């Protein structure tokens, strides 16, 4: 997965969990929780979707790395480099 595909993957998971949210306009560097209505339970859902779709484990102490889309790219990019993009919301 390229960095661009990591962004697509994260937006797709958010869209699955929170279908009402507008993901196309998300800023890469603003906190996700400042742009869309995303709380702790949604965040845990994102982590569990990452595990289900890509086999990626994110330990609690690393949750803070996923606060922005850019943070997701930086943290997940290496872990997803050899994975293929799945689009859950369109599956």
């Amino acid at each position, binding site marked *: 997965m390229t960095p661009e595909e990591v962004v697509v993957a994260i937006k797709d998971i958010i869209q699955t*969990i929170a279908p*009402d*949210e*507008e993901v196309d*306009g*998300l800023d890469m560097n*603003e906190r996700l929780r*400042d*742009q*869309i*209505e995303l*709380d*702790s*339970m*949604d*965040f*845990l*859902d994102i982590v*569990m979707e990452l595990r289900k779709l890509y086999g990626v484990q994110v330990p*609690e*102490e690393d*949750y*803070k790395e996923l606060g922005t889309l850019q943070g997701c790219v930086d943290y997940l990019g290496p872990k997803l480099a050899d994975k293929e993009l799945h689009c859950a919301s369109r599956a």
Partner: protein
Amino acid sequence: MNDLPEGNPARLERAVEVWLGSPEALGGLAGRDLLDDAERARADRFLRPEPQVTYTSAHALVRRALSAYAPVEPRQWRFSVGEHGRPDVDPRTPGLDADTRRLAFNLSHTRGLVAVAVSTVPAIGVDVEWIGRKNDLRRLAAAKFAPAERGRLEREVDEQAFRRRFFRYWTLKESYLKARGTGITLPLDAFAFQVECGAPVDVAFDAVLGDDPSAWQFEVSDVGTEHALAVAVGRGVDAPDLAVRIFTAGVGRP
């Protein structure tokens, strides 16, 4: 609706007061006049109007609720932010004295409901949840709850009963994490709640948390038919329980 005398911190001796309201009942975006520049900028960053309304009404309620206990106008409150993003009253807020500088609060909001807890005990946490939310609750419970909690949930065959019990555990967990100021950096399965009708809420902590159940008081309740509410109070080891009072707030009142 309840009215409060202004500037009366004495009400909070050995008490936690929780103010509840829907974003609409709280005036929605009209609360924007009470927010500071940083809060307005943050409200404006939301991409959709609904979170803007919820954020604005919630933060306006924080200011109005705090002003019920100290001689400070709602617009004048200043806040500081802790390591994990938890906001607190900035003791440099003009007009505070030795008593009112101890004011502590915690805020929670969910679809259709805002809650602000105020106390002079610093370790307080509040959580409200809309119990109709669409997340996969069974997957969350299986992955994140303590074994004893999972066992009790699995025995709930009725979907509504499962949902009610799930959100009692969830709001209690969130309120505890918020009272500790850590957010979800602590493992949710390292502490287990027991909630049975007519009995005080019981909690067990794993050693990894380094905490003592006798230092805590928990309250959990339904709010109408659609919301759950929990309050956590770190009142100190074997200290007497605080009174937890819950009020409905509206426009023009806290």
